[in-house]
């Protein structure tokens, strides 16, 4: 567990600059967070300390539930089969748009990048989030 925690902290420090770019490039950014699939915060931007743990858990639950729904429709959900990973989730309320994109962790497994913004074009958000996702993968691959 300590190894996992220190690895998460290492990854968090490494990817902070990549995630911070969202603030410069994405108009209306409300917050962004990189978390593990089992619900731990790795790196957060524009989010309160009291928010990050709960949001990381919620994001992993959301990703997991959405993953199941998509795989059920695709006919690939089963009790024993390893499911394909989800690419993207998009949810919206009024002007607030929240998306979550898959991030490949070259050290093994996947991470989730969640981005929230107001009054922003969804397509732009997706492009930005995917670019950051790719960058995160590259940064981890090069440095760890």
């Amino acid at each position, binding site marked *: *567990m300590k190894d*996992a*925690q220190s690895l*998460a902290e290492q990854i968090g420090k490494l990817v902070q600059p990549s995630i911070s770019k969202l603030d410069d490039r994405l108009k209306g950014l409300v917050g962004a967070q990189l978390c*593990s*699939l*089992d*619900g*731990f915060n790795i790196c957060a931007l524009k989010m309160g300390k009291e928010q990050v*743990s*709960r949001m*990381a*858990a*919620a994001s*992993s*639950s959301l990703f*997991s*539930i959405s*993953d*199941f729904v998509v795989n059920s429709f695709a006919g690939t*959900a*089963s*009790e024993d089969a390893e499911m394909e990973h989800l690419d993207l989730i998009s949810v919206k309320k009024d002007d607030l748009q929240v998306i979550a994109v898959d991030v490949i962790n070259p050290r093994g*497994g996947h991470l989730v990048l969640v981005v929230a913004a107001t009054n922003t074009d969804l397509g732009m958000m997706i492009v930005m989030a995917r670019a950051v996702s790719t960058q995160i993968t590259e940064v981890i691959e090069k440095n760890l």
Partner: protein
Amino acid sequence: MGPFGVGKTTALRAISDTDVVKMDVASAEVDQLDSAEGKTTTTVGFDYGEWRFGEEVIELYGLPGQERFSLLWDKFLPETSGVVLWLYGDKPDGIDEARRWLDILKSRDAIARLCVALTRVDSMNNALMIEYRNLVVKYHPFAPIITADPREKSHVLKAVSMALMTPFHLGG
């Protein structure tokens, strides 16, 4: 309901008559557990299964055991549900953990139909059972306390049946 690694997903799988909806992922917490040998994943969404008998269907939900997923406890614990609280019977601080979980359920009014299932413990351990009885009775005067192995279908069926048959009580 119950702590991480106690066997909630295993129990649900033991009695579900349908494929269990699983929302498990590889877990970094697994090596924390001395008592969950072979466990490699954790539930981050919820588990869902169905127990069918005749025309009746009992929907079975398993929820994550870690505090950070408490938002799911808030959403998935209506007071009308029967709740099986799975607890480690072999932990030195087991009673404290039981109290914490009973508080969690009580604060969500989810204690009305309750069965407490102690795992990894000998059913003949009367002293331990009395200790748990003395605690549980403060929350629900009629809630049964049993010893159960979450891998054993008959044990799990007994726990679920007892939770559903417990007289409705909202606690004091």
